[in-house]
Each structure stands twice: as C-alpha cells, then as structure tokens.
C-alpha cells in the first residue's frame, strides 16, 4: 500500500517558482500512481483564478498545468474557504474543480494523509 502525500500550496502564482514547483511534485507523484492530494491555502488560492494571462509576465500557463492534474490521477483537490473569503474570492468561480474546506475540515484533511509537504 503506497503512502499518501498531501501537498499544500501556499504561494501566489507569480510570486516565484513555488506554485509551479509544488505542482511539479504533484504531477511527478501522479505519474507514479501515488495517492496524492493538493490543497490551496493562503495566497495559493490565487492560483485558481480563471482568465489569468501569464504571458504578460513571460511565464508559462500554470492554469493549464493545474487542469492536467486529473489526467495524472490527481483528483483530490481542495481549497481553504477562509483563504478565499480573506481575499474576496468566496463568490468567484474557480478554474479548477476544488472542494472547499473550512478550518476544522482542513485539520481532518491533514490527518488523513501519511505525509505532508507545505510549500
């Protein structure tokens, strides 16, 4: 039985390489068929906004890569509802099908995984 890994992505999409490198860990794990989850927390929720234009910053399209996650077998996608509301995003349609979790549900989510990486 493979150990499961939760990746918590906390950085905004264009803050540096963290958002992309957190995703790379998820995609690599998915390619090996490992049980993975991805939680967007704090500024990480900004990765989920639709209609971003990374080309304006000469960056690669993170959204397209995030949307590839199910193809790599990573479908357990979560977002912290408090992080959304703090940033005025509670009513905002998001670019990915993510399950919204409140603080107590987040704690239970972390409990369910064998390992966690918070980037």
């Amino acid at each position: 039985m493979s150990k499961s890994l939760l990746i918590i992505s906390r950085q905004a999409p264009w803050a540096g390489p963290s958002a992309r490198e957190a995703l790379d860990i998820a995609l690599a794990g998915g390619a090996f068929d490992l049980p993975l989850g991805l939680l967007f927390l704090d500024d990480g929720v900004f990765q989920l906004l639709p209609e971003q234009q990374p080309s304006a910053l000469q960056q690669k399209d993170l959204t397209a890569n995030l949307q590839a996650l199910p193809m790599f077998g990573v479908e357990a996608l979560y977002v912290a509802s408090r992080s959304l509301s703090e940033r005025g995003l509670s009513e905002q349609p998001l670019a990915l099908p993510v399950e919204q979790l409140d603080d107590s549900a987040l704690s239970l989510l972390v409990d369910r995984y064998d390992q966690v990486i918070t980037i």
Partner: protein
Amino acid sequence: MATLHLLSHSPFSDSRFASCLRLLGPQDGLLLSGDAVYALQPGTAQLQALQLMPDSIAVYALDEDLQARHLPVPERALAVDYPAFVELCATYAKVNSWL
C-alpha cells in the same frame, strides 16, 4: 494521526504562524525554530495565542534558537535539542514543515 508542525518564520512578519494555528488538530504538536521562536516573546498576541491553545497541543522550541536570541522559555513551551527534535519526529505520525 497526530502531526508535528514545524515553523521557522517570524510570526510578526509572516502569515505562516496564524495559518498553522488554525489548522492544528487537538493532538498535534508545534515545534518553533529559527525566527518562529519569537512567538514566545512575552507580552505579545502571538504568545497569548499559544497559551490559549488547548493543553493537548504541545509546543516545543529549538534550544539553540532561544539561546541565540536570549529568549526565555515560557511555561507553555518545552525547549528541545536536536536529539529530542529527532525523537519527536518519530513520536508524531508525521511532520509538516511550513516551508
């Protein structure tokens, strides 16, 4: 499955401390290292937040970081050295570093 959370950023200039506290389960542990030990600074809302957590949540601080900063260890926290840090990682089911 209790988790040991590792913090190493200042709780004053960074949001990791606050986010971590909201995520803690009742049996989890918190280990402060680097500038995160400033959360033990007396007279702060951050120390108060730690003191208000249930006693079931253990708070540890890396001794070298306390010594370097000449910070006292409040009752709420236990100073640990590296061997104790290693054993805590073995005792808790998993470790979550807030990188």
